């Protein structure tokens, strides 16, 4: 059975692990989770379907699907031994995605979410920090696309502009900056945001290719 005890007994299930005390008890951060990690885990009730908002991940199998992808990365926060209360997901873009034209240069931070019942602990920052703390990203242009229709505005009691600012602050702490693109989903609403972090070993030529691709000019 996978639980904190199970994780301790089987370190092959994760690449790294940190524990900290919080107002809600002990929380364990697990990064670089390996396939099989989510066996017998439980999605905590603050992740799910609400009146104005649905979590991007609603089944544990979705985490495993991410781990099956090439270089798929899952970082999670665990409470009460086996309750997933937050996660950060990363993978290469899907093959039909605009950014896939640059191959393995591009890496998407596809989702980050914290349970409604565990907010205010800076878990988002911890999740993103643990995910990004890796030399792997120095060869990548890491990116996130924030779509306002995915945001839990009701749960955070924020409007879309405020939520956007919150996202900007969170990602900018890890070297991300906002960039513009004519990608149709991003341009659909002004609140939407694309942020990137350019790894230290990414060449100027690749950065220029990415700039052109942002505006629909494919690399030759």
């Amino acid at each position, binding site marked *: 059975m996978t639980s904190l005890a199970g994780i301790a007994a089987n370190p092959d299930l994760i690449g790294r692990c940190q524990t900290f005390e919080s107002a809600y008890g002990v929380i364990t951060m697990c990064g670089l989770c390996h396939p099989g990690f989510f066996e017998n885990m439980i999605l905590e009730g603050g992740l799910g379907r609400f009146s*104005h908002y649905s979590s991007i991940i609603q089944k544990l199998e979705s985490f495993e699907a991410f781990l099956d992808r090439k270089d798929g990365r899952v970082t999670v926060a665990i409470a009460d031994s086996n309750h997933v209360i937050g996660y950060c997901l990363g993978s290469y873009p899907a093959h039909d995605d605009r950014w896939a034209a640059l191959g393995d240069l591009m890496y998407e931070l596809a989702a980050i979410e914290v349970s409604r019942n565990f907010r205010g602990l800076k878990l988002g920052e911890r999740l993103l920090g643990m995910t990004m703390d890796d030399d792997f990203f120095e060869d990548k242009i890491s990116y996130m696309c924030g779509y*306002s*229709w995915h*945001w839990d*505005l009701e749960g955070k009691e924020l*409007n*879309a*502009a*405020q939520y*956007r*600012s919150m996202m*900007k602050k969170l990602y*900018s702490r890890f070297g991300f*900056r*906002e*960039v*513009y693109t004519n990608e149709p989903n991003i*341009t*659909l*609403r*002004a*609140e939407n945001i694309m942020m990137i972090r350019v790894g230290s070993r990414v060449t100027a030529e690749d950065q220029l290719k990415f*700039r*052109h691709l*942002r*505006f629909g*000019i494919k690399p030759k």
Partner: protein
Amino acid sequence: MLKDYPKAIVTQDGDSVLLRPATLADENALNEFFGEIPDQEQWFFREKLNDPKILHEFLLNLDYRRALPIVAVREKDGKIIANLRLHMSMAPCLGHVAHLRVMVHPNFRALKIGSWMILDCVKTAMDLGLEKLFAEFVAGVEEAAVGAAMKLDFRHEGILKGYIKDKKGVYRDLIIMSRDLQSKWSDF
């Protein structure tokens, strides 16, 4: 707030254009920019930044809290091809609103530079916590800018009939448009 600048856009012909706040170092390029705006359009300038002395004073006393001037600079030669100013009030009763003015060089008007600048302005205004953005356009003169603003969710707020007089003495309407920045729920 300004640390994300410069922000790059790429035009359909592959030219990179950088959006960034103007500084005193842009004085010559801005003089050239304003000088190349047709006379009949310069007539409608409110701040008369086409006057080198007024422009110099403006740049010398830049206060981004009151007026944030953003220039679009063609990367390959440093030419300024568009200019936008976000005007904010220090008065508490007007602290929630701002006005924008945008001008694109006549040779670069079919490249959507103005649309990108207005979008950039909307995003910046959001990040500044402003609640509403206003733009004013001269009817029959700035129709392209009106179209760009409408595509970016600006709405007609009102018209001041005959508020503007053109160089030939013809009265023109002033179109006032606004955009809410802090709407409570996504209407997607």
